[in-house]
């Protein structure tokens, strides 16, 4: 393993080398420290009910865990991000499997887990071409494994559910780890995560503020058109400002139209990811996918927005900036190759 690669994997020394990383960590810490004061003020001057009060505290505690769980691996190095994304994918697939009932098909679950291992391996190996081949290798496996059991009844359903879970929560979320092949992975991942999470917050706030027409009432009764548009405007502003002044200075990304496309993408596809999970839940007829995060539901209820946007983000960056991680030694473990 070359020195650059080692540094990328385990080099926590230059965790704060990029101003965006610094800014996000400081901003997040301040935000999480200030919000309790707001809760206390609300309690004293506005008078919220006990149950609401307990609810917001539980949400706040969960946010601390989420922030620590997301930011610390990113600061520590790429190896931890890859491990973290593997665990996240595993938990998300498990939630999806338990909600749809596909978890009873142990062999399909096993194939999906093997597929997840292959995805992580391809990223550790710095072998993006293998990564891009994992969808077809994985779904081939999922389709094959139950054939020898000779029970064609329900074949399409179980294979399709297995494939869907694997593609969305294994492959799609895997792109989050694939971003680590770029030396600037810390700010790139943080920009996406912060953008997507703030987009959720913007949508909620503007939706509450303006109300009005519902977006897709059958899928998600809480979402409004005003919320969607408000989130789009605010998120685009955010990416334009951060992209121009902090993140992409002097690169091909630093043009108003590329940054605008990125903003629209993060906001639009983020919201579609949200609605994708809502549609899944509505179809099954459940409210939450799990109870891992108190106040939020399952992990998927929190990370649903990332499912569609992450691959698009990666490929958009590659198209504009040139292939990510270019010039580094490829295929660290398998050797050979250019």
């Amino acid at each position, binding site marked *: 393993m070359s020195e650059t690669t080692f540094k990328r994997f385990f080099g926590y020394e230059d965790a704060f080398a990029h101003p965006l990383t610094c800014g996000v960590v400081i901003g997040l810490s301040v935000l999480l420290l200030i919000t309790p004061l707001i809760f206390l003020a609300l309690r004293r001057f506005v008078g919220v009910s006990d149950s609401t009060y307990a609810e917001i505290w539980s949400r706040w505690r969960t946010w601390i865990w989420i922030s620590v769980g997301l930011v610390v691996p990113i600061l520590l190095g790429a190896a931890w991000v890859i491990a973290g994304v593997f665990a996240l994918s595993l938990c998300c697939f*498990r939630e999806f*499997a*338990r*909600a*749809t*009932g596909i*978890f*009873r098909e*142990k062999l399909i*679950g*096993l194939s999906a*887990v093997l597929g997840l291992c292959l995805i992580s391996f391809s990223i550790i190996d710095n072998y993006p071409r293998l990564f891009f081949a994992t969808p077809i290798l994985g779904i081939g496996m999922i389709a094959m494994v139950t054939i020898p059991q000779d029970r064609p009844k329900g074949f399409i*359903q179980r294979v399709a559910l297995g494939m869907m879970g694997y593609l969305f929560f294994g492959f799609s979320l895997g792109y989050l780890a694939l971003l680590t092949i770029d030396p600037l992975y810390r700010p790139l991942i943080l920009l996406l995560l912060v953008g997507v999470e703030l987009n959720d917050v913007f949508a909620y706030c503007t939706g509450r503020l303006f109300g009005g027409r519902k977006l897709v009432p059958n899928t998600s009764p809480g979402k409004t058109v005003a919320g969607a548009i408000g989130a789009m405007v605010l998120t685009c502003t955010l990416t334009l400002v951060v992209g121009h002044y902090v993140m992409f200075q002097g690169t091909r990304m630093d043009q108003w139209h590329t940054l605008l496309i990125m903003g629209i993408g993060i906001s639009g596809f983020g919201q579609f990811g949200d609605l994708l999970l809502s549609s899944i839940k509505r*179809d*099954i*007829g*459940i409210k939450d996918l*799990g*109870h891992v995060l108190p106040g939020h539901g399952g992990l998927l209820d929190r990370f649903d927005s990332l499912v569609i946007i992450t691959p698009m983000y990666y490929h958009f960056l590659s198209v504009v900036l040139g292939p990510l991680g270019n010039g580094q030694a490829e295929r660290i473990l398998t050797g050979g190759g250019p």
Partner: protein
Amino acid sequence: MKGWEFQPARDLNLTGIERWRSLQREHGLFSSVARLVWWFLLRAAFYVWHRPVIIGREHLPLQPPFMLIANHSSHLDALLLASLLPAKWRDKVSPVAASDTFFDKHATAAFAAWILNALAIRRRGVRSHDLSEMRDHLARQGAIFIIFPEGTRSRSGEIQTFKSGIGRLVAASSVPVVPCYLDGCFRACPPSARYSKPFRLTVKIGKPLVFQNAPDNRAGWDAIAQRLQREVECLAEEYGAGGKE
């Protein structure tokens, strides 16, 4: 086009110890793999440490659901009975365990539920709803229950009176009940011991009984409990008379 029918996990809304205690609990791939590893290790440990002898294996039914009942004098009992079944049934075997001993603390509850696949039952104040849920679980899931009708480990090693709860589970049902007699467990690991001593263990398996025609009332339950106790005592006598080495 007709829509798909989804069957979410029955315990989707439960968390923590509540989930471990629930009869609705369902496990997935990880626990199945963990159980496979546990089953191999357990069998290896028994083989090396206790060299168990199994008499009458041919009496075991070929397909679940069925129920193994035995005399109870040690924590080894349930492990021994579970380990003599084939590995492919590892997700179907459920020792029925006292909820006050095994499902009080988080760690033991998680182990009992996740690895042993134990089902919690209250020793006192058991509700008829719980029992009917268990009957339902047994028949519908094709499960294998391991039950000790004495209700607790014998402190003297002698067989104690069987409680009538066993009757409530099997009266008027077609699920076969297999009586077993366990010998050596008390010597190897009595309730007072922390670790087990390397004594040989013996399992004598009797012929399966079906109580389809037994009346589902108090008298019927008592009769079933007495009948099963007699069966286990007979196995013990047979074993004492000739089966011993």
